[in-house]
């Protein structure tokens, strides 16, 4: 049974293909007008889940409800779900206006209504006067706008977007994602957005569903996901993160050994046995070069690498006493003298910025710098 306010509901959804399980134990309740993103690496099951909502794949088990109606086995053309594809999927033989009108013609709306609605949508996407253009006469960004208008024309109950910006260049991607969010807010349409780009997910969504290996890792608002990752996978996948392996020296005060160094978190680590191993996550932006506040945990190490990235300088250091690798950014303020490679430095961070991670799947491949915030 749906909770009050739930508009789109996925309950215990599982999808098996011949050789593997693509989605397992997927439970999600989306409220009307909410913008939810499925975020995860390739092959995590996010697109399969979206395709099950659209009806292109049938769940092996579980139910999908839209506004209380079980649509799990309903064919895609009877679901009233709008879909925007990565490849635009505009009908090449039709003009932009005809593409937008397609769904309305299928529904046998009066011609005047169709013409009016197409005009409104072309205006909404800022393409008035371009309705007579064929898809090949439009840029990628324009084609995706038309695809969005086409999906919105039928006034769908749920709008699904499958990596709609992946094929566009960075500048257009940024402007179009703001447009998508503005249009979604304006129309108040319930939206599910699939992306592997965490920046897109964080900037667009009311809530994010982080997925890995067909399962939900965490569901939360962008700040909940970023500031309070539930698992090591989420912590590593969303944003850049230093994960330090520590062992508990004293649970009541949160005293930990990081390699041969000792830090104190100033909070209890209840349930953690003395000598037990744990993962401690620290965002690079929380780390400060120098001693910092007297209450801040400090770590000492040697600078291994320095990258000049314009406004910031990215420093990578190796912690003394086999403490592991640590990365942090420092602003390139006028007069800033970055440390030298090989130089021994002390860094500090607020104790409450360190997150003790639950056990969770680790990423097979480390996230590259370009992919992370």
């Amino acid at each position, binding site marked *: 049974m749906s909770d009050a306010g739930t508009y789109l509901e996925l309950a215990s959804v599982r999808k098996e293909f011949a050789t593997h399980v693509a989605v397992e134990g997927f439970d999600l309740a989306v409220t009307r007008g909410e913008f939810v993103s499925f975020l995860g690496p390739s092959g995590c099951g996010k697109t399969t889940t979206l395709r099950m909502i*659209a*009806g*292109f794949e049938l769940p092996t088990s579980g139910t999908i409800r839209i506004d209380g109606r079980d649509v799990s086995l309903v*064919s*895609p*053309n*009877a*679901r*009233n*779900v*709008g*879909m925007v*594809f990565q*490849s*635009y*999927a*505009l*009908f*090449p*033989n*039709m003009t932009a206006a005809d593409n937008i009108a*397609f*769904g309305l013609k*299928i*529904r046998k709306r009066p011609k005047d209504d169709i013409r009016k609605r197409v005009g409104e949508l072309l205006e909404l996407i800022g393409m008035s006067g371009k309705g007579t253009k*064929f*898809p*090949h006469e*439009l840029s*990628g960004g324009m*084609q995706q706008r038309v*695809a969005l208008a*086409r*999906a919105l024309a*039928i006034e769908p109950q749920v709008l*699904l977007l499958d990596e709609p910006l992946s094929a566009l260049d960075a500048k257009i991607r940024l402007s179009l994602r703001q447009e998508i969010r503005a249009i979604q807010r304006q129309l108040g349409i319930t939206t599910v957005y699939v992306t592997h780009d965490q920046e897109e997910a964080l900037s667009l969504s009311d809530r994010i569903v982080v997925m890995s290996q067909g399962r939900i890792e965490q569901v939360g608002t962008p700040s909940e996901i970023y500031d309070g990752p539930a698992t090591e996978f989420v912590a590593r996948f969303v944003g850049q993160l230093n994960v330090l392996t520590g062992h508990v020296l004293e649970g009541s005060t949160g005293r930990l050994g990081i390699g041969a160094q000792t830090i104190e978190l100033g909070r209890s680590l209840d349930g953690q046995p003395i000598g037990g191993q744990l993962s401690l996550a620290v965002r690079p932006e929380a780390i400060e070069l120098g001693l910092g506040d007297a209450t801040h945990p400090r770590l000492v190490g040697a600078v291994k690498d320095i990258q000049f990235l314009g406004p910031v300088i990215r420093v990578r250091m190796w912690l003394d006493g086999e403490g592991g690798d640590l990365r942090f950014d420092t602003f390139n303020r006028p007069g800033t003298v970055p440390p030298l490679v090989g130089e021994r430095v002390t860094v500090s961070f607020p104790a409450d910025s360190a997150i003790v991670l639950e056990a969770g799947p680790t990423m097979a491949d480390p996230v590259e710098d370009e992919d992370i915030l």
Partner: protein
Amino acid sequence: MTQADATPMPAPIEKAAPKAARKRRRGSRVWWVVLLIAVLYFVLPLFATFWFSARPRVPLAAYAIAFRDPELWNHLLYSFLVALVTMVVAIGLFLPTAYWVRLRVPRLRPVVEFVTLMPFVVPAVILVFGLIRVYGSAIPLLSTRTGSDVVLVGAYVMLAMPYMYRAIDTGLRAIDIRSLTEAAQSLGAGWPTIILRVILPNVRVALLSGAFLVLAIVMGEFTIANYLARPAFGPYLSLLGNNQPYPAAAVSLISFGLTWLALGMVAYLGRGSRGRLPAAAVK
């Protein structure tokens, strides 16, 4: 580095440039010769046929005789109508098949392609004896004219299969049928709408190419039409060749001209087809 070390580089480049140009010119001449041989191979038989057809004392008399014969037009019209029905049936059969195989069972593509090659393996004469055996007695379709026409069209659809199926399959390969289908489905379209309004217009040129090949096959086919005793153009031409060789040569050239006219129509109808191609392919 001495000056002598630094200077020798330009000389080989200057020598190499005309050498490369000469090589390009020689390659170009070879291609012109190949093209000329190909043109001669194609044009000489036509010219010989025309020469033969113009041999009677009154020039072009053979053409006058051929044009005056009402049987020519009857047989041409019959074959043309059979070709049209064959095209419609072949498109109606092979477009959904090729579409479905690509969309839903791509693993079966090699099997289906093999099946489409069967008409090359089974000679027309074997095929027609099989048809006569089945539809002459077991299912007596050949006892009526309409029944015989149905069997003839069925046989021509089989003959057309390798050409039509491959033409359609190539056309489908050029578009993202999965995304287009899913986009249409999400907008509320059912299968007939998807095939007729989304897929078919986007493989128009492929269909026209296939249709042209069907036309060419049907207009020139002799064996099946002859054994089924249908008034097609092939048997008429053969009969004419036995009795009146000069008009037969003239009719051959006329049919050739008509076939080329059909090709011209395909090219004309297929013009301005950029709209059907994926954007990425056009840019």
